[in-house]
């Protein structure tokens, strides 16, 4: 058995040698030491298709069909025993199965810079974040969504899809049981470990991310390309861009109020200048306070807040956000802020937290809040 296997490699190696050399001398020396089992070759020569690997054999034995003598410098013997041919075919098939990804897949960089093995035509999708669910539905691919998270509540049909758990800790078992072609996640909500685990289980994970309004439009278009509905994505983005341009033109010359977006009030956490929320505020004609704050969710102390003196204070919607807007008037330090004194404290809808098609709704809502006179 071992001898047969050995013969394959010798056939391959020595044929390569033979093909490379074109002089008798190099032929001989090139093959020195690669052949030694003469007895084997003798027995295989008898009456069968034979692999002639030694130039000695090539010169001596006239093998049937396959051996050739090419030109002057090159001698090549290329007859194979039938079993060897079968084995080579098996090796080739095996290699191609190992080396090639499943038919029609491609390696692409996702929006977070990871290399992903994308299927050509994904039609079973799992969404790991609510904004991705919204984008998928907006692209008209709601039927291809086979699973989403517990928090996916828009559009209403999304709540009836099978749930795979929370964004931070989805159930791998549920995801595997849904047999998806592709999982869509975002580093803002999902952990890298989840993506790694899903990749290990054979489910590719495409990461979606955006930190500006422009970026969110680009990410929707990119996702459309990945999911095979580029045209629809372009149309959606064009509609969104039109609405954004309309807002910008309407409030072009207006004064820009300073806006404080309160993520949490004790300690006071606001949004950094490079987040998409800050970008939406800017697009709505406001100035997010603290242009030199670092990080995504910087913390502000009261003494840092007072000199910044925001004109408008925005709160995200939250059932757990217990103090009412009225309570803030009584808080020390807060009551001296212009925004509190003038009563310009508003609770915005959750659309501002979803980086998706409804971000433009949030933009229009914000623009209405920041510029109440011209409506």
């Amino acid at each position: 058995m071992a001898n047969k296997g050995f013969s394959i490699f010798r056939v391959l190696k020595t044929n390569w040698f033979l093909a490379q050399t074109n002089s008798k001398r190099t032929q001989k020396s090139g093959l020195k030491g690669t052949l030694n089992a003469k007895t084997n070759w003798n027995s295989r020569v008898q009456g069968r298709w034979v692999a002639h690997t030694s130039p000695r054999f090539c010169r001596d034995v006239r093998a049937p069909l396959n051996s050739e003598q090419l030109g002057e410098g090159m001698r090549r013997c290329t007859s194979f025993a039938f079993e060897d041919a079968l084995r080579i075919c098996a090796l080739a098939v095996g290699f191609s199965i190992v080396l090639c990804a499943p038919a029609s897949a491609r390696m692409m960089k996702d929006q977070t810079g990871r290399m992903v093995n994308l299927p050509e035509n994904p039609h079973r999708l799992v969404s790991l974040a609510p904004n991705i669910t919204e984008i998928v539905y907006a692209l008209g691919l709601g039927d291809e969504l086979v699973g989403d998270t517990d928090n996916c509540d828009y559009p209403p049909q999304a709540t009836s899809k099978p749930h795979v758990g929370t964004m931070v800790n989805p159930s791998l078992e549920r995801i595997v049981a849904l047999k998806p072609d592709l999982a869509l996640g975002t580093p803002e909500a999902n952990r890298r470990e989840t993506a790694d685990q899903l990749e290990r289980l054979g489910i590719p994970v495409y990461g979606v991310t955006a930190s500006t309004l422009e970026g969110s439009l680009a990410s929707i278009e990119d996702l459309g390309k990945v999911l095979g509905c580029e045209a629809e994505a372009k149309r959606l983005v064009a509609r969104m861009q039109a609405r954004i341009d309309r807002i910008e033109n309407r409030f072009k010359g207006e004064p820009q109020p300073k806006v404080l977006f309160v993520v949490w009030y004790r300690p006071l956490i606001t949004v950094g200048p490079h987040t998409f929320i800050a970008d939406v505020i800017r697009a709505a004609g406001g100035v997010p306070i603290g242009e030199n704050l670092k990080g995504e969710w910087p913390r502000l102390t009261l003494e840092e807040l007072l000199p910044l003196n925001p004109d408008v204070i925005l709160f995200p919607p939250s059932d757990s956000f217990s103090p009412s807007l009225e309570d803030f008037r009584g808080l020390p330090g807060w009551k001296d802020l212009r925004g509190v004194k003038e009563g310009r404290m508003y609770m915005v809808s959750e659309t501002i937290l979803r980086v998706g098609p409804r971000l433009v709704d949030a933009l229009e809502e914000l623009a209405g809040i920041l510029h109440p006179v011209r409506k």
Partner: protein
Amino acid sequence: MTFPATPRNVILIATLLSLLLGLVVLVSLTMGAVHLPLSAVWRALASRGGDSEAAVIVLQIRLPRILLAILVGAALSVAGTALQALLRNPLADPYVLGISSGAAVGAIFALWIGGRIAAASPLAAFAGAMITMVWVYLLGRSGGRLASYTLILAGVITASFLSAIILFMLALLSTRDVRGIAFWLMGDLSETPMAELRILAPAIILAIAGMYVLAKDLNVLLLGAEEAAHLGVNVVRVELGVYVLASFLTGIAVSTSGAIGYLGLLVPHLGRMLVGNDHRMLLPTAALGGAILLVLSDTLARTALAPSELPVGAVTAVAGAPVFIYLLRKTAG
């Protein structure tokens, strides 16, 4: 209940507990966020592969978790037993000497640096644990040996210092990384692939075997260092050996699965209630008992609120605290 620690008894208890462990493992393989009947589980185990989703769920999601739970449960319980003997203190647990805080610092440090090092955070955590082990040893030895008094103090001081460092680093990390670390700090058995288990299993088994070799000496050490020395035990070497092995076991357990509490504290006591104080019986009992308990806790964590998962550390704490209170009342009389 006290069994004399004859080889026959040891083998008997070990076999009984191993059978129980096997049963628990089989039951746990059938439980999870996706309902799989026993036949599907059998088929998946027997065929050892295939692409059906049952096979993927059983072999690639549940089985590595359960195997890791066995290894970590055994490691922490044995470390806890050994440290309780070394420090002659029934309240000692594997984390009292700061090993878990050292591992957490290592993991957070790796995340902070980011990039490729972040991907190898279990290694960084293990390095942190080993550095802490050496540090606490150097700090806690007195007169050339590990006196329990100074060792505990050195360990507690180091643990608090490192916890402060952890909080400091958490404040500086970005939110995404903090989320990852939070899972680590609560205990997470789901992130170790089979390939890593192939390295972990021999390491943990060898360390537990090494501890078992020292079991007889641990018994004598309980009498006190001087008495043990009079009885011919090489106290310095045994103490060092027990310390290194216990820290190694804790370090490995914590680097791969985070800080799972109460196991190292409770299982030795439960084992003592079952088989008595002789470490030749107690160590195998604690190892297998810890494995069984952690597999059960992990199964509960996976299934109680499916598809969400509770952190394993929370389940062991919630289950462990009442058990501990009960034990305390029972022994207090």
